[in-house]
């Protein structure tokens, strides 16, 4: 095993541990809450980076896949099985062992569908939908693909906003915690902040490792070749239509998992998670992270989401992300955090330093 390849991964783990220790020592663990949320959003961003940056297929509809994860688990796990005991379906769920009991925020014990089950259902729905819409729309390219995915995102948003079952504008709240195993719970309980931060960090590290492996493989090369020249890739025997579809589904799965976990962590989900502006935010972060740069996307995803969630952008939030996207597309259409840009930046810094030196010497 190549140790050098995994150095950044160890650095990432180290950074997570250091953050946790600092906040705990300073008695500022509440910062971890937004870091945890940012980490889940980063799962969406990492999946989207592979789709956009490497395979070259834009999606302005990834908030929809996130929402599918979040809303599926919200609808299923807030279904009170004890109250619906006389219903056949509810009895069947309980008898099949698909339910679990937990105490809600008010100390009342409730029986509900196990979040593991709702996670699997959410994944099944997401995979099915991603396949169904991916087959027709991935035939489109560039702006047309952007428009089609945007349309898909808007449809999902309107469905979520207009359906009683999804809580309309209020969304769904009072989700039970997601017991992973043993004492590990995905939940917003302040007492479980530290373990929730590590659960999210673990998922991010896992995602980075898996996706980095994918990029460095035969499959990753095939995806990048589609980006380079679809015609040539096809002539080399790469089944471009199929790979585009598979990577689209893969990135949708990442968004769905993030949706399920973050919804259990937040204890609720609202229509803003499905909003098209959310999708634009994800795309903006992938772009500012360097397009084809997992680490850049991760760094930017953590930083910008954290600042946004802590409210530093205030009511200018949408303005900030929209502005970022415009600036990147105008001046760095291939993404910002790239080797070439870094090089020219360093060169500019050196030139500046030399100039200052010269000025200093002239003055003295």
């Amino acid at each position, binding site marked *: 095993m190549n140790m050098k390849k995994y150095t950044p991964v160890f650095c990432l783990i180290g950074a997570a541990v250091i953050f946790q220790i600092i906040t705990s020592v300073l008695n500022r663990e509440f910062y971890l809450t937004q870091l945890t949320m940012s980490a889940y959003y980063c799962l969406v961003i990492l999946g989207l980076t592979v789709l956009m940056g490497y395979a070259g297929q834009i999606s302005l509809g990834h908030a929809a896949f996130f929402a599918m994860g979040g809303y599926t688990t919200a609808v299923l796990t807030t279904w009170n099985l004890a109250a619906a005991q006389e219903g056949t379906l509810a009895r069947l769920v309980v008898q099949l062992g698909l339910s679990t009991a937990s105490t809600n925020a008010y100390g009342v014990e409730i029986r509900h569908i196990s979040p593991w089950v709702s996670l699997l259902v959410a994944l099944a729905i997401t995979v099915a939908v991603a396949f169904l819409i991916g087959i027709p729309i991935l035939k489109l390219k560039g702006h047309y693909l952007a428009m089609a995915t945007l349309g898909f995102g808007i449809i999902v948003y309107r469905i979520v906003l207009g359906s009683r079952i999804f809580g309309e504008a209020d969304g769904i709240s009072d989700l039970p915690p997601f017991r992973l195993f043993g004492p590990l719970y995905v939940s917003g309980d302040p007492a479980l902040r530290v373990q929730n931060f590590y659960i999210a960090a673990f998922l991010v590290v896992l995602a980075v490792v*898996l996706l980095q492996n*994918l990029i460095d*493989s*035969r499959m990753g090369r095939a995806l990048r*070749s589609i980006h380079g*020249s679809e015609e*040539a890739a*096809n*002539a*080399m025997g790469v089944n471009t239509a199929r790979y585009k579809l598979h990577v689209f589904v893969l990135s949708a799965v990442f968004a769905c998992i993030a949706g399920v976990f973050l919804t259990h962590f937040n204890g609720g989900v609202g229509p803003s998670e499905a909003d098209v502006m959310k999708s634009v935010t994800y795309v903006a972060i992938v772009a500012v992270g360097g397009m084809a740069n997992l680490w850049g996307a991760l760094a930017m995803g953590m930083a910008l989401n954290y600042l946004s969630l802590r409210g530093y952008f205030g009511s200018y939030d949408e303005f900030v992300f929209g502005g970022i996207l415009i600036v990147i597309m105008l001046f760095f259409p291939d993404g910002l955090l790239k080797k070439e840009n870094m090089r020219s930046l360093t060169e500019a810094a050196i030139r500046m330093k030399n100039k200052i030196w010269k000025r200093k010497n002239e003055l003295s």
Partner: protein
Amino acid sequence: MKQLSRSFGGLRAVDDVSFNVEKNSITAVIGPNGAGKTTLFNLISGALAPDSGEAYIDGRPIHRLPPYRIARHGISRTFQNIKLFPHMTVLENVMIGRHIRSRSGFLSAMLRLPGSRAEEQQIQERSMEILALMGIEGIAGQEAGSLPFGKQRIVEFARALATEPSLLLLDEPAAGLNMYETAQVSELITKIRGRGVTVLVIEHDMSLVMNISDMIVVLSSGKKIAEGLPSDIQKNREVIRVYLGEDNA
């Protein structure tokens, strides 16, 4: 090896063209601009679907298959206006050529299973061998898009060769190259044939065509107007007419 008969499009860009290519030969397709040479290549490689007609390689039909499937039947190609993967290195470009000769999927790649790692090693070694054969192992790590034109052509060659084709389609391999580079290309084509590959080449450079080809097919306005040995084609009146535009030749 192949029996080809196609008509195509309202324009009849390729009109009922039939010919055979002998195994392990070098066959040139020549003709004035707009004769339908590249369209013919696009039909063979599957980039365009034919309106009618059939194509076979080793007796197997390929005329209804998408391009990626045709590639798996051992047909590889280069493009008239080079189509490399510009942001990938030369080595990575050639490694794409090994795609159809390897198998690991999404899951085994993400988990880096031992099988996929061994395969990756093989792909890399084999690709380096091909770079060495083409004499460009020195630029393996360079980004393909940053190379000079002549070098890009050779990388495209190497990429096509990495698929281990039985039939290689070269679309104007000497276009835009100087005399020295053209001689190099001619040498490479002969070398590739020496490895048992059948070559079908579109080319305007007549000295190159006459030097290397065993057979020549001449197209004009989508129709085949002549087929034969280089020496015969040079004497063919019809060919001279379409090339020089003589009315009373």
